[in-house]
């Protein structure tokens, strides 16, 4: 079995091929650097993305607070994460880097990416 991928580790956009040698051993070709190999392996085993969104904010200044996941999140968990985020309402003050949602079971933490004082 094999799968073609485009590397997103940097702007070069190398065309990668992932080949399953057996159940667990995967060979990545087409990469021009070690980061490409790492990306290719992760992309076929458990693809992950950083998720950024906004949540409702009670503030005299701003209606939506921008937030970001602390680390890349497995792709199949993104929909549930967004649904959770869209139910949240926060109140100012909020500081940048503050944890606004902690889904410990999934290992997902969402942080505020902006400071809103009032």
């Amino acid at each position, binding site marked *: 079995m094999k799968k073609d991928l*485009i590397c997103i580790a940097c702007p070069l956009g190398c065309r990668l091929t992932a080949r399953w040698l057996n159940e667990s051993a995967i060979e990545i070709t087409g990469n021009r650097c070690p980061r490409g190999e790492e990306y290719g392996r992760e992309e076929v085993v458990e693809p992950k993305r950083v998720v950024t969104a906004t949540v409702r904010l009670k503030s005299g*200044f*701003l209606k939506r607070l921008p937030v970001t996941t602390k680390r890349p999140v497995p792709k199949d968990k993104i929909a549930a994460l967004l649904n959770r985020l869209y139910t949240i309402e926060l109140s100012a003050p909020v500081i940048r880097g503050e944890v606004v949602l902690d889904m410990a079971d999934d290992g997902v933490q969402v942080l505020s990416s902006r*400071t809103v004082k009032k």
Partner: protein
Amino acid sequence: MNTAEFDTLVIGGGASGMAAALSAAEEGWKVVIVEREEFLGGILHQCIHNGFGLHYFKEELTGPEYAERFSDMVESSKITVYLNMTIMDIMKEGDGLTVYGLSMDPGMVRFKVRAVVFANGCRERNRGNIGIPGTRPSGVFTAGLAQRLVNLEGFVPGKECVIVGSGDIGLIMARRMSWIGANVKAVVEIQPNPAGLTRNIVQCLNDFDIPLYLSHVVGKIKGKERVEGVEVIPLENGIQQPEKMFSLECDTLLLAVGLVPDNELARKIGVELNQETGGPVVDSRLMTAIEGVFACGNLLHVHDLVDFVTEESSRCGKFVSEFLIGKRPEKQYRTNPGKNVKYIVPNYYEGARENVFYMRTLIVKNNAILSVKVKGTEIYRKKLRHIQPSEMIQFSLKEEDFKLIKDKGVMEVSIE
């Protein structure tokens, strides 16, 4: 009317203005930033996605995080900031410049300054600029406006969406609209190649199975009150093929069709504009032909990374400082785009110091060669692993590079 005196006034408190102001203030000058919005940071605040700061901070930040790192620095500096203020007029007066700013509070302010930095960014090209025929229903937005509505104001512009333009802004908005629950039907791109980064094609389109129609245009917008759909026409060898037209139903059309430097004020004071960039023509120290008037950031030319905006604008702040202490450049010569080069900024160089250049190519190529020639003699050569029009190229010439020149003159930069 209030009158205020400063050494330098910076127009715009986004990434560019903050960097220029900080770097001039560091040299001890009295600096004021005038910002139209009610906060510093500019467009970065609506760019909530990550990918900023990899060059400058060596870590990956979101737009608001990048903005806040700089606004924190401005707040703890001696820089004066006027928010909610629009610059109405600028004129040469005596040895300096007079600038009029207007706001609700404190009203009209007359600024007497010795130097002005234009750092007020871009506008988006809109439907009028690309001339899409059809009716004029609601539901047609520029992509940046839609981004602002979603990310700052908390509105959902529509549910079924078609995007024109595959530049990074169009791609980022395709993902953003998908993540707020809209259905993105297609991205339509007139060129045969995607205009945005490959990583954004993967993360923003492929992840959501959004089709990208290359060499296609939106030929017509349909709908009376609200957008009901668009007609998409393929191009073959640059010619529309109307018999192959197909329709897409949608209630929203986002236009991500490029940015143009917001140069109305600069034009007003008589600054010469560069046809290719839409920004002012500047000398090797980022000064326009009007003494004491500088330009940097997206107002000078559209950058693809904010990190480069910061770098260029910080340099601009240092040039302002040199100007204020009375340093003037040696004789300068033109820099001209040669083969496969769309533009090069700045438009002049001087031989006695390091010169940093930003440029864009017209071609897509791996292992390209950048070559700099002065009157036919090559003084610099650089191998580039991968080039494409959407990725800005940076290089710098050191003082010793210029020693190779016997006869100074026009510099030509080409790519093969």
